C-alpha cells in the first residue's frame, strides 16, 4: 500500500520489481529518466527483439503524445508514463478482434487497479479515457505494427495523473483533468500503482486470450458513455464531420453503438450505427442547460 513516505520517492527499478507480482508483464523493465515518448521507445525496443511483456516506464516524457499526435502533458516526478509490449502470434482471423479489445481491456485494468489502491471508482469514457468525477485522470494510446507478419506487436501506452495537485495543471486542463492525489487527498506510490495495473492487465489479457473473460460485460459496467447523449467528432475536431446521438451499447467488437438524433435514412432510424474511431464528447441532456 502506498505511504506518504514512499509516494514522492523517485521511481526505481528495485521498487517496481519488489512490488511486481506478475508472470510476464514488467519482468523485462526499462526505467528511463526521460524519453520523448514511452510508446515510441517501446515500439523501437519491440522491433529490435524486446520480449513479450516488456515494460517501458519514464519519469517524464519530452514529447508525450495522445491520439493523432496530440500532446500529453508529462511533467517529471509526479505521474506515471508507461508502455507495455504485447507480442503474440495470432491466427489471422483473430487479429481484428484482438486489436479491437486490447485497448478496452487495458482501460478496465487501469480502472480496476486505481480502485483497488484508492477506493475511488473510475469510469471510462469510450474508448479508454479514465475519468474520476467526470474529469480525466488518465488515458491510453495503443499502437500496433507488423500485424501481417509473425512479428506483430501491440504497444499499450498508459498515462496517469498521480501526484499532481489540481493547481499544478495548465490552465486549459483545469476543468478537464484531475489526478489520483487530488481526488483521494493523499499521494500514491507510483511503483505500487504500476505493479497493480500490470497485474490487473495480465489477469484480463490472459483470460481474454483463453476466451474465458467477458471483457464486454466488465467494460460495459465501467463505461459511463453508455446512456449518454454524445457528439462524435469523426476526424480531428472537425465539427463539420460529426454526429450527435444517444450512446446505447457496446458492440461485439468494442465499437460504440449510437442512435442518431438525425437519422440519415430508414436504416439508421431503427438501428444504431457503430463508431470505431473519433472523439466522443458527453453532452448535457437536451433542455438541461
Amino acid at each position: 500500500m502506498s505511504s506518504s513516505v514512499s509516494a514522492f520517492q523517485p521511481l526505481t527499478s528495485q521498487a517496481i520489481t519488489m512490488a511486481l507480482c506478475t508472470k510476464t508483464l514488467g519482468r523485462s523493465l526499462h526505467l528511463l529518466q526521460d524519453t520523448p515518448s514511452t510508446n515510441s521507445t517501446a515500439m523501437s525496443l519491440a522491433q529490435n527483439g524486446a520480449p513479450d511483456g516488456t515494460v517501458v516506464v519514464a519519469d517524464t516524457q519530452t514529447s508525450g503524445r495522445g491520439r493523432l499526435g496530440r500532446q500529453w502533458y508529462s511533467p517529471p516526478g509526479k505521474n506515471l508514463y508507461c508502455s507495455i509490449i504485447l507480442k503474440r502470434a495470432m491466427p489471422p482471423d483473430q487479429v481484428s478482434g484482438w486489436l479491437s479489445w486490447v485497448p478496452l481491456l487495458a482501460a478496465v485494468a487501469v480502472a480496476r487497479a486505481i480502485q483497488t489502491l484508492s477506493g475511488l471508482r473510475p469510469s471510462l469514457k469510450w474508448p479508454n479515457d479514465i475519468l474520476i468525477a467526470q474529469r480525466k485522470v488518465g488515458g491510453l494510446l495503443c499502437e500496433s505494427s507488423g500485424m501481417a507478419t509473425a512479428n506483430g506487436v501491440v504497444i499499450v501506452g498508459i498515462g496517469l495523473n498521480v501526484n499532481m495537485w489540481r493547481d499544478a495543471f495548465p490552465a486549459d486542463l483545469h476543468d478537464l483533468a484531475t489526478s489520483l492525489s487530488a481526488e483521494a487527498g493523499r499521494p500514491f506510490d507510483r511503483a505500487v500503482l504500476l505493479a497493480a495495473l500490470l497485474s490487473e492487465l495480465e489477469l484480463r489479457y490472459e483470460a481474454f486470450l483463453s476466451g474465458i473473460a467477458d471483457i464486454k460485460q466488465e467494460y460495459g459496467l465501467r463505461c459511463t458513455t453508455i446512456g449518454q447523449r454524445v457528439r462524435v467528432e469523426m476526424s480531428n475536431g472537425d465539427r463539420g464531420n460529426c454526429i450527435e446521438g444517444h450512446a446505447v451499447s457496446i458492440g461485439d467488437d468494442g465499437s460504440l453503438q449510437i442512435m442518431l438524433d438525425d437519422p440519415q435514412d430508414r436504416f439508421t432510424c431503427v438501428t444504431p450505427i457503430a463508431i470505431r474511431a473519433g472523439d466522443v464528447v458527453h453532452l448535457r441532456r437536451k433542455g438541461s442547460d
Partner: protein
Amino acid sequence: MKKVKRSVRAGGTRPSSVDDSIASHRARPAKHDTGPMGEHSQSIQSFIDLLKQHNLAELEFEREGFRIRLKRESAAGLPLVVKSDTMAAGGPAQTDSQAAAVSEQTNGMVTITSPIVGTFYRSPSPDADPYVEEGDVVKKGQVLCIVEAMKLMNEIESEVVGRVVKILAESTKPVEYGQPLFLIDPSSSS
C-alpha cells in the same frame, strides 16, 4: 496462368474476392487439367461471371455427373457504410464493385488491404506529412498508413519493395475490413 492479383494484409483473413477464392483455387488448374474438370473450364468461368453479375454469395450446379459449387466467403453487397452490429470486426464488407475495380487494375500489382474496420489516416497526425504519396518507392516493412479502431493506431506496412501506383482510400474516412488501400507495383522500384 499468371496470377492476376495478390493481396497483402496486415493480419486478418484473406479478403474474399472472386479472383482469389474462386478463380485461383478452382478455375485456374482446370486450364491444364486433363481430368474431368478440364473440359468444364469454360463453364466454370461462366458460372463465376454469373456469380459476379448477380452479386450472389453461393451457386451450385449439377448435371450429368458434373457438379460445381461456388461460394464467396464475403457477403458482397453489404453496404459499404458502417452500420450496426452486423459489421462487427471480422465481418467482411468488401463490395463486389470494389473487388472488380481493383482486379482490373491490378495486373501484377500488389494490393494492400485494411485488416480491420476503422478510420484511415495517411499521416501520423493531422499536421504531419503523409507517410507516402503516389509515385513513391517504398521499402518492404515501410509504414504506408494508419487504420484506427478503438483508439488503437494500427500501422500498415508494405510487404514488398515497389512503387505506390494508387492510393485507394481517402484520409480520415472510414474503411472496411478487406478494403483495398494501396496499389503497389513491385516491378517498379527504382
